[in-house]
């Protein structure tokens, strides 16, 4: 401790507050209580905007199909046939325009590598989608492509953090937490924000950090709850063996009675919140197994989502769970599928990821539509950045790959108030720069908030003396052109 730290803040004050716990217990308790009542505003210290949603939402819930690692827009969606003629030529400096490269390809020749895949036009709208994604191509009339996505970050963790929280450093709430905080739950038996990770057939090289669904400065009751792809989808969910359900109920009744007596004596509202959380835990013990037990699904479900959907924890199985969560009114459902990071052997690795995800992603859209749920469910498919038109390794070999690329990438959305059979934005002839209607990550955030009935500039949370918002401090815009 020195004079400099003293100048910044008063450490004695922090220490005293830490030990004395100040009013936080009361404040947090009141907030927890209000959240259980399904209303998150009315907590003045939090700085939450009142009246969320601000207007009638188009989407009631979001399913975010996060493709982690940076899927190649060049192989999948952004068709650049002209690159065939430029194959092996140096990427012009006028195109690259000083763009920083990652350490992997810095100082190496940037030679154009045309797409390894074959494209065709699909459906009535004639969307251009790779033949590596036949199922997604087959439902492209339902989709809204954004081919001019832009981010600022060139490495995975900061780029994914940016994509999900609006900032490349950790410590901000993920998008789902904002919705949990602002809109609460339609289902009192499940958390508002659930996260599902694909269980890969071989070990994944890519970490999925838990701050990707972390609540940052929001109270951590809003953090995403990760369902595990294991026997117990929620840790500690199962009562110990030898304890029947009625005795658990009795034990919790006794706990409730004694806690209520204590609350009378101490006047601490945190106790009431705790009683409610124990009751939620009890309800989750019933609701979570019912959710994850797919034995009540007809055979046709598994046929729709593909053979991998029978493997617990697979992307396809998680897509079925996502639909079941949506049916149960969960606000924000986020899947993560890793290993889209194809620096080499792009042809074999990228097609493998396509096989993992193509049929199930398309099945989810079809399934939601046939159940009449697509209209008020927003589905988002996308990763943290795109890939470079220059080859990494040998550009003319099947062993070739592509390095990270932040200046353009493609995502798609469906349902929930966006246009269908629509493509927005465009890149230059190299798929290097987004030149027509660029959509920055923060514009996407503003748009998703808008679809959920929230004005992004009014939806804030006060932390460390600042009113934070998902879209950050730089100008962000709702992309009205893609709204239905």
């Amino acid at each position, binding site marked *: *401790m020195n004079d400099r730290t003293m100048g910044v803040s008063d450490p*004695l004050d*922090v*220490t*005293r*507050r830490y*030990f*004395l*716990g*100040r*009013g936080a*217990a*009361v*404040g*947090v308790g009141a907030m*927890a209580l209000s959240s259980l009542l399904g209303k998150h505003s009315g907590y003045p210290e939090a700085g939450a905007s009142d009246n969320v949603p601000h207007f009638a939402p188009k989407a009631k819930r979001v399913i975010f199909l996060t493709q982690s690692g940076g899927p190649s827009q060049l192989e999948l969606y952004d068709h650049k046939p002209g690159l065939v003629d430029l194959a092996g030529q140096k990427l012009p400096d006028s195109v690259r325009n000083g763009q920083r490269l990652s350490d992997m390809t810095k100082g190496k020749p940037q030679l154009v590598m045309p797409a390894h895949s074959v494209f065709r036009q699909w459906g009535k709208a004639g969307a251009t989608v790779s033949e590596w994604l036949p199922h997604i191509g087959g439902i492209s009339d339902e989709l809204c492509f954004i081919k001019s996505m832009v981010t600022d970050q060139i490495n995975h963790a900061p780029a994914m953090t940016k994509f999900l929280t609006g900032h490349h*450093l*950790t*410590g901000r709430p993920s998008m789902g937490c904002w919705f949990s905080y602002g809109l609460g739950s339609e289902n009192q038996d499940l*958390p508002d924000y659930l996260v599902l990770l694909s269980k890969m057939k071989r*070990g*994944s090289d890519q970490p999925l950090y838990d*701050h990707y669904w972390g609540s940052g400065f929001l*109270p*951590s*009751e809003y953090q995403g709850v990760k369902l*595990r*792809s*294991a026997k*117990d989808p*929620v*840790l*500690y*969910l*199962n*009562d*110990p063996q*030898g*304890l*029947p359900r*009625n*005795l658990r109920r*009795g*034990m919790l*009744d*006794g*706990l409730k009675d*004694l*806690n209520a*007596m*204590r609350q009378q004596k*101490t*006047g601490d509202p*945190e*106790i009431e919140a*705790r009683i409610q*959380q*124990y009751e*939620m*835990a009890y309800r989750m013990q019933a609701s979570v197994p019912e959710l994850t037990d797919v034995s009540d699904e007809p055979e046709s479900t598994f046929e729709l989502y593909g053979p991998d959907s029978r493997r617990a924890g697979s992307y396809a199985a998680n897509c079925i769970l996502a639909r079941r969560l949506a049916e149960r009114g969960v606000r924000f459902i986020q899947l993560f599928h890793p290993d889209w990071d194809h620096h080499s052997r792009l042809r074999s690795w990228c097609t493998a990821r396509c096989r993992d995800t193509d049929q199930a992603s398309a099945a989810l859209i079809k399934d939601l539509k046939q159940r009449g749920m697509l209209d008020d469910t927003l589905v988002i498919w996308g990763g943290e950045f795109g890939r470079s038109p220059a080859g990494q390794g040998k550009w003319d070999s099947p062993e070739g790959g592509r390095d990270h690329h932040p200046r353009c990438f493609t995502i798609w959305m469906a349902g929930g108030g966006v246009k269908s059979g629509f493509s927005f934005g465009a890149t230059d002839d190299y798929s290097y720069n987004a030149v027509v209607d660029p959509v920055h990550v923060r514009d996407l955030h503003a748009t998703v908030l808008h679809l959920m009935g929230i004005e992004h500039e009014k939806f804030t949370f006060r932390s460390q003396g600042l009113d934070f918002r998902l879209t950050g401090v730089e100008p962000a815009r709702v992309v009205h052109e893609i709204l239905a």
Partner: protein
Amino acid sequence: MDNHWDLKHLVKRILTSRTYQQDSAVSAELLGRDPDNRLLARGARFRLPSWMIRDASLAASGLLNRTVGGPPIFAYQPPGVWQDQFMGRFTYQSTLGPGQYRRTIYTFWRRSSAPTFLFDSAMRRTCEVVPRRTNTPLHALTLLNDVAALEAARKLAERAGEGFGKSPHEKGGTDVVLKTMFQLVLNRPPAQRELSVMKREQRKALAYYRENHEAARTFVSVGQLPTVPVGIEADLAANMLIASLILNLDESITHE
């Protein structure tokens, strides 16, 4: 500052002050006048951080191993946690023997996989000045079903039932056992109405376990605690359930 920035001195000064040692009970009038307790007219009331909850329940049950120093121990973790994180490149085996009951500060920890029972631990990615004190259903599930918490419950029940032989309940020891468990955890005797709630639930459990000895045996066979002798499992299971209830009380996990 007068004591050369001695933090220990400062902490001791705070802890031994009359202000810090005040009762945290609050009247509606006082709550209205000073909701944030800025004037320090009452003691602070806050939930213990999760590591302290584990240590406190181990201490109350008599399981705590107070050895100082040495290598870390591998606390109980639900199956699959480490497999998910490390895809088989690291095998986690929980510590057998007294090491398991060491203070939580000795628990093995990797930043990518913090011990799961520490439900409010800092992420250890960015600097955090104050630990979060959250209140979620996942905490409740942890404190209800974690192996360490259940072992502490059984041990607490055994400790309170010492001297009664096979069945404290047949020897009129029910009240004594319940009062002892309550006292060991909360450092105060239960009020009459608190005792009657515990007796109510204990009677239900005892009735069930006397009819279902196998269930009782399964329930008390937790973690690495020794097998219980035949004949005592029903009484022990019923007491263990109430011990778990007491350890889950808001008062048990809260600084008052």
